[in-house]
């Protein structure tokens, strides 16, 4: 943090993060992504653009996936957050993560928070997505490694395994 002196408006907010209730001090000007990464040390949530374009800062807030660089931490007070660390709810990979693993759905993994949360969001709404549906659903995320082909295949595999 680089506080601008003791005058910087600040407060304490309450959050539930991956099932754990906690409170954390924040400055009013802090974005949620920075609080998640720097104060809560959930550094699986990444930062790429701070502009809403890349999706690597994706978390779930109160059951909805959002880009956490586009919201002030103060606005999330009282919220229930799942970060990529809490994605599977345990130590094991969940079925979507497993499909990404099996299909080589990532290389460096930087884009995974966005890709995995978007994939889960899609499969909850549409258990049998077409390729076009999958491409549409992940279109808010940028991957610089894979060329997307294996990501689309991973989501498709996860969907097939769920329905078969």
């Amino acid at each position: 943090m680089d506080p601008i002196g003791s005058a910087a408006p600040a407060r304490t907010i309450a959050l539930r993060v991956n099932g754990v209730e906690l409170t954390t001090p924040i400055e009013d000007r802090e974005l949620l992504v920075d609080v998640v990464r720097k104060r809560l040390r959930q550094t699986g949530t990444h930062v790429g653009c701070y502009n809403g374009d890349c999706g690597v800062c994706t978390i779930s807030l109160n059951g909805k996936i959002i880009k956490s660089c586009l919201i002030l931490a103060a606005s999330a007070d009282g919220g229930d957050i799942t970060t990529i660390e809490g994605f599977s709810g345990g130590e094991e990979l969940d079925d979507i993560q497993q499909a990404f693993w099996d299909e080589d759905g990532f290389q460096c993994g930087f884009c995974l928070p966005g890709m995995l949360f978007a994939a889960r969001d899609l499969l909850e709404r549409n258990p049998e997505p077409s390729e076009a549906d999958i491409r549409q659903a992940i279109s808010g995320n940028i991957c610089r490694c894979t060329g997307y082909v294996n990501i689309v295949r991973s989501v498709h595999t996860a969907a097939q395994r769920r329905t078969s």
Partner: protein
Amino acid sequence: MIRTSLRYHRPATPEESTAILVEYAGDVVVLGGGTMILPMMHRAEVEAGHIVDLRGLGLATVTEEGRYVRIGAMVTYGDLLDSDVVAREAPLLRRMAGAITGGNQLRNLATAGGAACYGNPSSDVPAVLVALGATMCLHGPAGERRVPAAEFFVDAFRTAVGGGEFLMWMEVPRLVVEVGYHKLKLCEGSGPIVTAAVVRDGGRTIATVGAASVTPLRFDLTSCVDSGVDTVDELIRDGVVNPWTDVLADGRYRRDVAGAVVRRAVADLREG
């Protein structure tokens, strides 16, 4: 990280919100979904000492009120997509929300009201609100003020929202009309180059063109819609007198393609 000092306010009433906007006039911004304003503050393109979050005002609801559907200023594109009322009574809003890029991670934060108040010509929202004949309900120092969408968009990035005012609701008439929509964009993730919303109400066919000009433009197609490509294209090209240029496209290009976009929206309407 926003590099300047910022105080966060979450008022619980419209009156309290206006009081804060008046007290810190010149040094305060309204926070809607935050998807435009926060990145701009992060890049220090907008500086303010105070920010007023509208999340405490209960404006995230869609309700049926007699002859219109009332959309709160904090209703996100995701809320529009999930709403049965919108699907039934205002399908054009649903079409628009579904066409917004950025994925559900963006649509779950960004609001249609925020896009309207931002007044970016390269947006899907202004032309759709004008096409539907929406009324923008503002709250300010003098209480409530209602502005027709057609008068709300004054210039690029300039709206009718005055000092101390903010948008509370948008009222969209429940008209039994047929609609068509088409959006031209460069790629899946690009903002709109030109949009066209076509509404057929009784015997009249009206096209509202967005992103081609600094503000939405309305064209009465009733007499020319059956007389062929050339008439429509000419009508639209002549009408785009103040074409909009930004990083996405040159104004001359926008003016040239606007007619084709309108024709596709008409085809969309015909195909139902």
